[in-house]
């Protein structure tokens, strides 16, 4: 049975159940290499800098979106702050042709996949439900009903396998969502059909106000192993470790191995959403503990230690981030208002006579106010 040994350095006050095993770590908090790391990774300056760049951009986008919400321009925002390493490290481990099924907080992933700020914010401004073309980015729209996307990803992967296409499907799932029956069904179904899917679990230790200890009595990767998945447990605030671990699992899956499960231990640094008040359920001590483990800081220290972060590059990156923030804001404010006619049009592929009649009546009614 699971021993609840808590690794203080990594876990802090939220106390994730861990069966005697520490997550794989490549970089220690001070940015130096962890000699205990088992993961293979060829870290070039290019790789480290490009990961850092995407994390910085994601952080800046997240911040700008947060402000837009506070200013009433977005209805809601779910921050990915603190999870940039988990998201960027994993998304970058895939090939462009691989397909992603996100949950709803994977903004850094979306950025990696080239989703434009307008496409990303439209949903949170209330202009649409899914803002981008999944086929273009090989990234499905967000799924807000927890865990449902893991079954879609599994089915998609069954298709990939049937097509012998050599692609890998990666789906993101939160620690809380793992409690949903759908997620267990997906893990099992993937294992039984041996489909090329990787479940990437961002264990950010919270589901709104609920600790991960309420969701599970064992480490989540242990549960996945019970279903027969190829698992790895990784420090989710260490982008290099995440990148290496996800690459390892994804390539094993691509080569025909059993489906994979990556548990990345990270932390939701902001509230669950802009509607949330995390002070009701967690201490500032805990938040500060994790602030000190900020994934950006860690990689930055590594870059600095290696002399890979020259001021020119950093200031260029700063400029790029500010430009992105400006773009985000501009794109948000320029979003067109949604029309109910468009929802009518998207309800069925072949509009029924009944729906056409109803749509016409709606339009006529709307027009009667003109």
């Amino acid at each position, binding site marked *: 049975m699971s021993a609840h040994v808590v690794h203080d350095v990594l876990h802090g006050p939220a106390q994730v159940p861990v069966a005697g095993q520490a997550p794989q770590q490549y970089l220690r908090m001070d940015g130096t290499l962890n000699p205990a790391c088992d993961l293979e990774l060829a870290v070039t300056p290019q790789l480290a800098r490009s990961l850092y760049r995407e994390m910085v951009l994601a952080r800046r986008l997240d911040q700008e979106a947060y402000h837009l919400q506070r200013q009433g321009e977005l209805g809601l925002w779910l921050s990915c702050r603190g999870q940039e390493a988990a998201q960027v490290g994993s998304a970058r481990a895939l090939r462009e042709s691989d397909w992603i099924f996100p949950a709803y907080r994977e903004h850094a992933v979306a950025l990696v996949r080239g989703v434009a700020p307008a496409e990303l914010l439209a949903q949170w401004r209330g202009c649409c439900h*899914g803002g981008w073309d999944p086929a273009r980015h090989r990234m499905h729209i967000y799924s807000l009903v927890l865990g449902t996307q893991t079954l879609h990803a599994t089915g998609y992967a069954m298709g990939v396998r049937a097509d012998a296409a050599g692609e890998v499907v990666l789906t993101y799932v939160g620690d809380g969502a793992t409690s949903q029956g759908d997620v267990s069904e997906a893990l*099992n179904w993937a294992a039984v059909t041996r489909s090329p899917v990787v479940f990437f679990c961002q264990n950010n230790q919270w589901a709104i106000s609920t600790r991960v200890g309420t969701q599970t009595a064992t480490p989540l990767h242990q549960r996945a192993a019970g279903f027969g998945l190829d698992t790895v447990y990784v420090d989710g605030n260490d982008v290099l470790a995440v990148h290496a671990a996800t690459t390892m699992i994804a390539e094993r899956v691509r080569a025909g191995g059993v489906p994979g499960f990556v548990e990345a231990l990270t932390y939701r640094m902001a509230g669950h959403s802009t509607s949330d008040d995390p002070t009701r359920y967690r201490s500032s001590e805990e938040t500060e503990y994790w602030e000190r483990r900020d994934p950006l800081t860690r990689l930055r220290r590594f870059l600095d230690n290696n002399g890979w972060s020259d001021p020119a590059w950093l200031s260029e990156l700063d400029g790029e981030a500010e430009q992105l923030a400006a773009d985000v804001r501009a794109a948000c404010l320029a979003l067109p208002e949604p029309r109910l006619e468009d929802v009518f049009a998207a309800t069925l592929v072949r509009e029924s006579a009944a729906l056409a009649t109803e749509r016409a009546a709606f339009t006529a009614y709307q027009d009667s106010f003109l």
Partner: protein
Amino acid sequence: MTPGSAAAPTRQLSLGKALNAGLRQAMLDDPSVVLMGEDIGALGGVFRVTEGLLDEFGEQRVFNSPLAESAIVGTAIGLALRGYRPVCEIQFDGFVYPAFDQIVSQLAKMRARSGGRLTVPVTIRIPVGGGIGAVEHHSESNEAYFCHTAGLRVVACASPADAHTMIQEAVACDDPVIFYEPKRRYWDTADVVVGSPPADGLALDQARIARHGSDVTVIAWGPTVRTALDAATVAEQEGKSLEVIDLRSLSPLDLPTLTGSAARTGRAVVVQEAPTFTSLGSEIAASITEQCFDVLEAPVARVGGYNIPYPPARAEEQYLPDIDRVLDAVDRVLAH
């Protein structure tokens, strides 16, 4: 000669076998069609609707699934996103509920949620209704849940010929379709023209006047169509002329056909197996009344299951609408 060619053969088929032939045709016509569900492989499904298809098309296209309805529908959505055209079998009506979330929040809404970018042509086949003396959860008529769900098409076949055509149209339809198969009519047999349906097929949207009449319009679907037809035969002997409409499409409703008939007869009775409260029968009554208020001679009558859980098998005869109850309602609307 290949099936579906001009001179398609006519065969005497049970409704179940007509479905089987229809699925086979759909698989021949479109290699993206795959079947999935519990026990649909070697067994051919508990009603044998997929019999022989595993042998003919192989495991890649006929997938005997683990026992999890939410996963059946959820992975079917994923397969559809990949370009497949999955046909899911739910073993019995009462076992569709574990998949309710995937059907209602995902399958039905995927297109709208994606702003019209995504298409999920999934067909969900459900043997429906009572009358076969089954144990609990095996006799449910739950079409109301899906009719109330925007984004789905809901259809029910009532005859072997329709079964054969409609299943192919459902599979070919780019919208998700809940496809009801009237369980106790699986063994009804009739002539079926075997082959692909005409390309301009409209059955999925169109009701069928199964019998013309002038005194009362009787609206039925799935298993109750035969009940209504039988009632019409008896009524004729009593000098009453019933027009029987087989809905075929439960959502959307072919309202022009319904109101056209009701306007002609001035009286309508809806016959369903489902409990009447907040049911498709309620909708039909409300819709017809909305449009025909001034020409109706009587309120639309509803004959259906009572608003209680489906009874044990040996009491189901008391529960299910039969000829007597239909005629009783006909008399009521005529007497009004």
